[in-house]
């Protein structure tokens, strides 16, 4: 039989990091392919996605949140929300999952060289941005200014917190955090991400803005970026949709005539603005 695109490869959970606890728990799972050849040769680019299987439970598509510069493993950062993610959060180191991919398009890491990159993330939306950000940090000389605007509902909900702290200390990345409501001891911005963006007033010159978060956040971030003078082709986002096949056949992740799984998930606002469809 020709290769069965629905059959996943096997991967072992080799580490689990609890990023956020509580009701909106987020964990990062480090996965290592069991097949030695796959482990060595698995290649992807920042922005691409992977379908993770829990046998007997089901499958879900996630952005790969590690950078391709990290070899021999991949990471996915997952918020506990539905059937598959709840079961995934129950997993322990040493457990086996299925993984197939990588799928979809990717961020233009070549075309964006020598440009300033502005990352605007909200909540778990930082996961796909993390892959690109880490890639840029590992190739720091290739890119100009790196700036991160990130917000979460509360300080407890901030994902990849240690990494942000570390970046702030390194001083080669500007990090601007925010939470939605004031908390004692919080000395960064309070308010929504689009408001923080407006306040910081970044220059669009030679800059690419990449945003990911809840749909409502993306909407207002894009609106504010346009007001700040960013052109439509300087704004990128990565979308999510419910997916089953991941390969453009099962029909459900379409926005208009475009399938997010194979034509996306990365879109420039230039492409999105003309795309009439349900998002």
């Amino acid at each position, binding site marked *: *039989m*020709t*290769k*069965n*695109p*629905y*059959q*996943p490869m*096997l991967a072992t959970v080799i580490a689990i990091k609890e990023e956020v606890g509580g009701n909106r728990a987020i964990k990062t799972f480090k996965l290592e392919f069991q097949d030695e050849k796959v482990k060595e040769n698995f290649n992807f680019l920042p922005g691409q996605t992977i379908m993770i*299987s829990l*046998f*007997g*439970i*089901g*499958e*879900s598509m996630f952005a790969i949140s590690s950078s391709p510069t990290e070899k021999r493993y991949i990471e996915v950062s997952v918020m506990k*929300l*539905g*059937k*598959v*993610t709840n079961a995934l959060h129950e997993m322990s180191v040493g457990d*086996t999952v*299925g993984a197939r991919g990588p799928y979809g398009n990717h961020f233009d890491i070549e075309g964006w060289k020598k440009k300033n990159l502005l990352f605007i993330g909200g909540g778990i939306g930082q996961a796909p941005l993390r892959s690109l950000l880490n890639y840029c940090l590992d190739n720091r000389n290739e890119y100009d200014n790196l700036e991160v605007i990130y917000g979460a509902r509360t300080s407890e909900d901030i994902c990849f917190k240690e990494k942000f702290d570390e970046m702030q200390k390194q001083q080669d990345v500007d990090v601007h955090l925010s939470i939605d409501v004031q908390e004692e001891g919080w000395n960064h911005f309070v308010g929504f991400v689009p408001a923080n963006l407006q306040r910081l007033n970044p220059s669009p010159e030679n800059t690419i803005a990449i945003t990911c978060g*809840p*749909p409502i956040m993306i909407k207002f971030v894009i609106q504010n970026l346009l007001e700040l003078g960013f052109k439509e082709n300087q704004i990128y986002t990565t979308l*999510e*949709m*419910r997916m*089953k*096949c991941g*390969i*453009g*056949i*099962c*029909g*459900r992740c*379409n*926005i*208009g*005539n475009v399938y997010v799984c*194979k034509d996306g998930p990365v879109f420039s606002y230039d492409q999105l603005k003309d795309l*009439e*469809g*349900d*998002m």
Partner: protein
Amino acid sequence: MENLVLSKEKLPEMLTEIASKYALFGPIEENGFTSFKHINNSQEINLDYLLTRISPKSLIFQQTETLFTFNKGKEVKVNTPKTDEAKRVIFGIRPCDARGYSILDPVFEGKKEGDYKDPFYTKKRNRSTLIGLSCNKPDLNCFCTSFDDSPASAKNVDILFTDIGEKYFVDIVTEKGKELIENLSKLFSKASEENREVREKVEQDAINAITRHMNTEGVVKKLDKMFNHDLWQKTAMRCVGCGICTFLCPTCHCFDMQDEAILKEGARIRVWDSCMYPEYTMHASGHNPRPARMNRVRNRIYHKFSYFPKNDKIFACTGCGRCIDYCPVNIDIIDIIAKVKEAKT
């Protein structure tokens, strides 16, 4: 195209011969309606039908199909099941349903470099030889002629049978068809000019008997300007969201993938799904890109008359009329397209 005739009394013999070498599928009446099933005895075939209730897309794109099995003991193992290797003959498929396969091909077989191929569909499709059966008496809601097709079209089959009274007129269309007939040649005789004239008349009469027409001219461009038109809300007011239009449609191809498992083993199974259900696009977060029936009705029409033409250069409609026949609230796709044509934008 080679033309033969087959005397009707020789049909059982032909089918028996075919069934001895191929897995034979044909229309069978069961529980009051016909559907395509595997046939062991040629007597089972019922050719009095016009359209099976469930389209024969189910023979190639099965309603349920195991994609792989898994063992989840200490060491997890996954396995692709052995597929049915038998060569198939699908006998009695109507030209519109055969066209349905041609519409689905680019979806499952990919159309450009880098597209994924679905091996489950592709394999069954490639192993199947289609013997079509022309429609002498089209039904009330047949409109295949709206898509440049005909009730006696040989375009999407390997062999076409047309009932010309005592005999079937046989068009041998493809090499695959020729190969199938070669071993059965003793049953057939050469078609005469008179036979051909009768066939032409049967086809013309059938075309004339079609009363309904869908005018699709300019619809793709028109729909580009109608995404926010109130037609969708109005149509959706009537829709009960049962999804029957999608299950019976020969071109609907959406599916779900579900795990069925006991403690240590199980399988991932593909099942037909329907874009008419709210769960279909529901995210785990609770966000739903198509939360209202309006969104789903609109998506179904756009998928067939805008997205398919844009992506695959073809309308995803065969004119079989099943969605009109079986809609419990009489939603009529011809009527919807007519309203699209009329709509002011």
